[in-house]
């Protein structure tokens, strides 16, 4: 090892590099936050969408499904399910679970009220309108 | 380092500095004239390669080190400019 390779310099580069790149990250984050309103259509986040997200979370949907590609990979992507299936199908599907078909993957029955079902659909509708740079590649998600 | 050594250290760098300024002005004039095309692109990129080599070997002092260090920078430079050239050539159809 060369003698002109000092621990002090390595340490300085670690601290300097970490701070430098974190600042750059913050700058990019700032720009992202400025740009997001044009992409997430937050003006369409109604109370119903907010409630729908809450139901999405408290039923742990992400434990089987993905949404915008994040979650478990056990059940279909739901970021674009509104475009794929439409609101009525989604409600009917949730109400009819579990299918009970032997050997098939099962979705629990959550006993949601009609209002709650509407909220979930509103949430999925809003999600499907986010500008995701054209992901997923096709309607199947 | 005595005065004679200092002169041998600085002289080439001063020369390189003036050359770099001159090459920059050349690139600038090409840019201002709005010239384009493969030949101009290659000339400007070639100028950049020469300039980077001068900075690396003289200013950074790599000419006094083992070939390994010069090789890393040269390899990086040729790879990057080579890929840039390829990208520009694919754009011309």
């Amino acid at each position, binding site marked *: 090892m060369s003698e002109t390779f000092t621990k002090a310099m390595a340490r300085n580069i670690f601290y300097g590099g970490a701070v430098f790149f974190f600042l750059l990250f913050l700058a990019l984050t700032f720009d992202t936050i400025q740009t997001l309103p044009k992409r997430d259509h937050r003006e369409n986040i109604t109370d119903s969408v907010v409630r729908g997200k809450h139901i999405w979370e408290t039923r742990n949907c992400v434990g089987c499904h993905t949404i915008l590609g994040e979650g478990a990979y056990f059940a279909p992507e739901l970021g674009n399910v509104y475009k794929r299936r439409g609101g009525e199908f989604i409600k009917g599907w949730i109400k009819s679970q579990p299918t009970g078909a032997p050997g098939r993957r099962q979705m629990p029955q959550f006993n949601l009220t009609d209002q709650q079902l509407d909220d979930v659909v509103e949430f999925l509708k809003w999600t499907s309108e986010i500008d995701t740079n054209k992901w997923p590649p096709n309607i199947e998600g | 380092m005595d005065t004679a050594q200092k002169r041998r250290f600085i002289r080439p760098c001063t020369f390189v500095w003036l050359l770099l300024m001159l090459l920059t002005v050349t690139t*600038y004039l090409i840019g201002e004239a709005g010239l384009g095309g493969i030949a101009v692109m290659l000339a*400007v990129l070639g100028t950049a390669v020469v300039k980077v080599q001068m900075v690396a070997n003289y200013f950074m002092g790599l000419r006094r080190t083992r070939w390994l260090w010069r090789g890393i920078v040269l390899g990086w430079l040729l790879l*990057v400019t080579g890929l*840039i050239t390829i990208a520009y050539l694919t754009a011309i159809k």
Partner: protein
Amino acid sequence: MTTDTTTPDEILATPPGDLAIWFFIFAELLAFGVFFVAYAFARARHVALFNESQQQLDITSGAINTLVLITSSYFMVRAVAAIKQGLSRECARWIVAAIGLGGVFLAIKLAEFHDKFSAGISLSTNTFYMFYLSLTIFHFMHVILGMVILAAVMLKAKGGGYSAENHTGVETGASYWHMVDLLWIILFPLVYVIH
């Protein structure tokens, strides 16, 4: 700290400065290199857009900034030469001059950014401006980082912290500063001139 007894003719095992800074330099070269190549390939997909947007750039300020950085880099060569003779004060003065030119670079660049931002241009305007702003801001931040490093070296030099035998710190700062210059030498023709 080590003792430097090399003469200009000797072959060094490692480049001037602390080897650790060279790991950093190579990492930076790699990151910028990938970005340069990405620019070129993105351009290949949108030639017309890139050519059109590129014409709105101010080549003059870009060229002046190249001259500024090259000269600043040269001043650092003089600073290293000075400290190799044990001239701490002269070394510090050269570094101050180098930092000063770094400041000039930043001022010119800020004027350029101001121009673009007041024209409503942002990272999301189009792919060309995404690259133009990313590359130049990324480089801009490196100039600032380089100036901070040089300032620290300068203060130590002024306080007599380096000598003819022991000046790895000056070479370390100089090597980083030369890299900042080197990157701009590619960035300028790539983004401002070639089309």
